[in-house]
């Protein structure tokens, strides 16, 4: 043991420590950029980045599952671990619950998309509210008409963000922002966006695309391009893209959350 063992990681590849620092937004701009560029051209590091991201998502989902559905109403009690998790989750869920004063969507789109996760840690997530229950949504999430979504973003640096969707009828919807151009966002982890949507009665699969761009993208052009390209839609130049899938089916009002595939 140890006398014959060798490291498998090539010297030029990124260590888990650096990936962890990147995810925690601890790196300076030049180091972050160097890492992101390496990840884009290195198959091995790309796979590692994705595997680590998926593990983080799974851990986060488990954490959310450990605390009461409404930690504010239920109070926080239990062992220290539960308390720690609850502190973290309460902050996030409280923000989401406070902001889940929803305005119905007028355009009638629903959602779905391949669950590719962008390089460099830029991605979206969402809280899903059904009745008085709130949970964090999965990257492929089964939903029902009337469910309410509140999106969060994580970005290691300031970008311009737009969230759009393409439903099974090929209708395009703009989830964020409400203005005509992509909105500037500041660096952060799980930052809740200032508006939410309520899903209408349309059924089927809807792809939700989040575009993190260097410039404030015109949404009219984005809408037209997404409608034209459909499922083949790719990130415009200067943007990175994250994608989620919502599968909407009719369920009973009391049907519990069904996360679908992660």
């Amino acid at each position, binding site marked *: *043991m*140890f*006398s*014959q*063992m060798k*490291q*498998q*990681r090539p*010297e030029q590849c990124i*260590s*888990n*420590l*650096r990936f*962890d*620092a990147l*995810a*925690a*937004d*601890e790196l300076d701009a030049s180091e972050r950029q160097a890492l992101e560029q390496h990840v884009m051209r290195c198959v*091995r590091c790309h*796979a*590692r980045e*994705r*595997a*680590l991201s*998926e*593990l*983080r998502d799974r*851990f*986060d989902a488990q*954490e959310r599952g450990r605390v009461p559905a409404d930690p504010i109403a239920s109070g926080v009690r239990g*062992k*220290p*671990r539960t308390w*720690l*998790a609850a*502190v*973290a989750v*309460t*902050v*996030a869920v409280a923000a989401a619950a406070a902001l889940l004063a929803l305005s119905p969507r007028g355009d009638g789109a629903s959602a779905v998309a391949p669950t590719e996760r962008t390089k460099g840690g830029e991605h979206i997530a969402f809280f899903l509210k059904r009745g008085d229950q709130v949970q964090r949504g999965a990257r492929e999430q089964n939903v029902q008409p009337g469910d309410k979504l509140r999106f969060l973003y994580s970005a290691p640096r300031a970008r311009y963000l737009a969230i759009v969707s393409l439903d099974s009828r090929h209708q395009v919807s703009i989830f964020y922002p409400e203005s005509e151009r992509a909105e500037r966002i500041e660096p952060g*982890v*799980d930052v809740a966006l200032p508006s939410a949507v309520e899903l209408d009665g349309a059924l089927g699969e809807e792809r939700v695309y989040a575009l993190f761009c260097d410039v404030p993208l015109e949404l009219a052009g984005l809408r037209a391009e997404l409608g034209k390209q459909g499922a083949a839609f790719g990130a415009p130049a200067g943007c990175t893209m994250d994608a989620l899938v919502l599968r909407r089916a009719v369920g009973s009002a009391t049907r519990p959350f069904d996360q679908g595939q992660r």
Partner: protein
Amino acid sequence: MAEASERIAEIYARHAASVYRRALALLGDDAEANEVVQDVFVSLLERPEQFAARSQLSTFLYSVTTHACLNRLRNQRKRALLLRSRVELPPAVVALDAELLARVRGALQRLPAPLAEVAVYYFVDELSLQEIAEILGCSRKRVSSLVDQLAAWGREQEAACSAK
């Protein structure tokens, strides 16, 4: 208090998954890994001065997590359980397969403390000598020497086994 809670919540949100992942790799047991997460963050909450901004928080948490896991591996009551554990992590995350990880755990509980820590960083985490030096707060040369001592320890163990 509200500010402290929010600060802890932020740190927890950013780092807990990493602490859990490393604890799971080192201990091979989900419940034990969860307890390490609890211990690490409760300790940070109770004694925030231990971080003291001497390095990035990630680097500090690697050190604290490693110590917490090594203590558990050396705990007589838990040793047998942990050495049987075979939890798989994606190969992209941990280079060693479950069988080899289990053997490494067995070796870690017999190694002198400084060498055990280096073994974790070098062979399980696959960190560079410079990164290990940052965590340990020593020179890269010192880390290189410790890796050499680790290999020598391994050869001694193999020789002892062959002699039996």
